[in-house]
């Protein structure tokens, strides 16, 4: 049995209990740092109260993961490891959460925050002291090839992470879209074991709660995570970092995971410090400074060109779907020259909005490559996506944007298609 030492207040679940070791983990600098990393990055520029942190989300994931593991009747040891993994799952996040991940990816190959989490767990001495022999078992739960139900509680299509963030993000943004019947899902989760693998299933009677969960996920994406103002502010952030690296305001070693100082540098950053680092090392006339300063004051670029790709003619569609990010800079420069602004402030952006609610295994596979499996009373398994009686006739949406300063918006609108196509 776990010995709960302390209870923390939480706005979603009431109280969250922690063991002594978990309290020690919570008190380490790398977990405390998560207090200073906003869960939703720039989303507070759209929804002003979305200022909650990765820290409280990590506690929420521990709480849900614990309930899932208890319901499945896992052993005390398995539950202990799952709780550690849940608490630690986001320690690899950089400033502005997923925003920084995009920065890492563009500067350091395909590095994700999960890779950084693994690196922190592997290298950090504090963790060794607290987790001892459990450390490797925790690391195993972050292994993509791990085929156990414990790993699925941490990362899958119905994991503790998503079940926490949908409700928590909904609560803090003030929208109701992320609310779903958590209790029904927790009541109907089950596991299948065959050979050396085990995985989560949901009993057939919980299928409607799953539909509710998927709808919540879909609506949170369209209304919050993929809001166009967030897309603009995220693009401005990426561009500011690109410029900072290009103009050597920031040392590119900062993003090189193989550099021996990578973790020290990385863990010294949080949302405010990262902005400060650019502002203090750049100068007001430089574009990285200008973009960060604009973000701080919510002076955002505008949509100079905005199109649903489906509405274009065949050759234009072909051009957009084959357009690679490596070709963007050249087009941005042409556009900037034509409208008379700095090329750093013209940003091309392609956005896929998945709105095929119940034909959306694709989107979920993209996210974590696991379908949601429903189990009928005979134990037969079905992919929920294939069995759902509800589906949307709408095709997914592919949007293409060009963001630019407000003062050149109309000019850009007039020349965009000539230059793009």
């Amino acid at each position: 049995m776990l010995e709960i030492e302390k209870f923390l207040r939480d706005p979603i679940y009431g109280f969250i209990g922690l063991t002594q070791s978990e309290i020690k983990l919570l008190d380490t600098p790398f977990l405390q740092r998560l207090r200073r990393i906003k869960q939703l990055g720039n989303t507070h520029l759209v929804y002003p109260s979305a200022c909650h942190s990765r820290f409280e989300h990590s506690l929420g994931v521990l709480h849900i993961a614990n309930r899932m593991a208890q319901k499945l009747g896992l052993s005390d040891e398995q539950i202990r490891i799952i709780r550690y993994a849940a608490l630690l799952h986001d320690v690899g996040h950089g400033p502005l959460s997923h925003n920084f991940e995009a920065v890492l990816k563009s500067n350091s190959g395909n590095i994700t925050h999960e890779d950084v989490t693994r690196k922190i767990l592997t290298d950090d001495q504090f963790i060794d002291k607290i987790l001892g022999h459990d450390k490797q078992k925790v690391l195993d739960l972050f292994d993509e090839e791990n085929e156990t139900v414990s790993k699925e509680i941490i990362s899958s299509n119905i994991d503790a992470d998503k079940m926490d963030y949908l409700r928590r993000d909904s609560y803090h943004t003030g929208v109701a879209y992320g609310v779903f019947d958590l209790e029904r899902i927790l009541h109907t989760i089950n596991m299948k074991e065959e050979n050396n693998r085990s995985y989560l299933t949901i009993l057939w009677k919980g299928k409607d709660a799953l539909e509710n969960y998927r709808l919540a996920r879909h609506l949170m994406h369209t209304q919050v995570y993929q809001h166009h103002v967030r897309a603009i502010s995220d693009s401005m952030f990426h561009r500011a970092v690109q410029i900072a690296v290009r103009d050597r305001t920031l040392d590119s070693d900062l993003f090189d995971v193989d550099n021996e100082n990578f973790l020290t540098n990385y863990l010294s950053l949080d949302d405010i410090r990262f902005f400060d680092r650019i502002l203090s090392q750049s100068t007001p006339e430089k574009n990285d400074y200008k973009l960060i300063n604009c973000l701080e004051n919510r002076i955002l670029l505008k949509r100079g060109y905005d199109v649903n790709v489906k509405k274009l003619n065949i050759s234009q569609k072909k051009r957009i779907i084959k357009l690679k990010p490596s070709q963007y800079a050249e087009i941005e420069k042409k556009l900037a020259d034509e409208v008379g602004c700095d090329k750093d402030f013209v940003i091309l952006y392609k956005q896929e909005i998945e709105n095929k609610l119940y034909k959306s295994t694709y989107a979920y596979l993209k996210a974590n490559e696991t379908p949601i499996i429903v189990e009928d009373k005979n134990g037969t398994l079905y992919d929920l996506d294939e069995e759902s009686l509800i589906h949307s006739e709408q095709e997914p949406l592919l949007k293409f944007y060009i963001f630019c300063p407000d003062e050149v918006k109309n000019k850009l609108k007039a020349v965009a298609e000539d230059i793009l196509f």
Partner: protein
Amino acid sequence: MELSDAILTTVKVAGNRVLGRTAIQKLVYFLTICNIVEARYRPHYYGPYSVDVASSIQMLSSVDFLIEEMDTPQTTGYLVPENWKRYQYTLSSEGEEIVKDFEKFNRNEFENLSQIIEICGSTADYDMNILSWAAKVHYILSKKGEPMTDDAIIQTAESFGWKLSEDQVEMAMDLLENLDLCE
């Protein structure tokens, strides 16, 4: 070859109709094995599956080059039979035009792709089950890197959560042999 061109051309060569998500995934799987196109595949419980392919199909549907339609159920019961739902992929007129252009300017690539897809048609009639068994067997053989008995294949399949019978392995081997993917 770009993945989007490969998917559209595959549908065209298969008679402008591919039935089932599994079928289109597995047809492209064989194209990747034959180095016609690049896509990452990972083992899922229904066989090797590619997020790249899934994503590209979605993008092609979103611009109306590819039409993804679903059969509606004939039953009114709540617990519907397995596999009642089947997706059908066809090309739109714009999709056809893209393939025509591709064929015109990339004759060799078009022919190489056609050869593989046509073998899948003549040997397996584009049946998603046979394609799926063949992809699973190929995945297992390529992981092992050496010849295996049917029993060994069936046993290894279980470790991926895949159930294969001897007959299924035989049918899979027929297709793989015709594709020149095993001896």
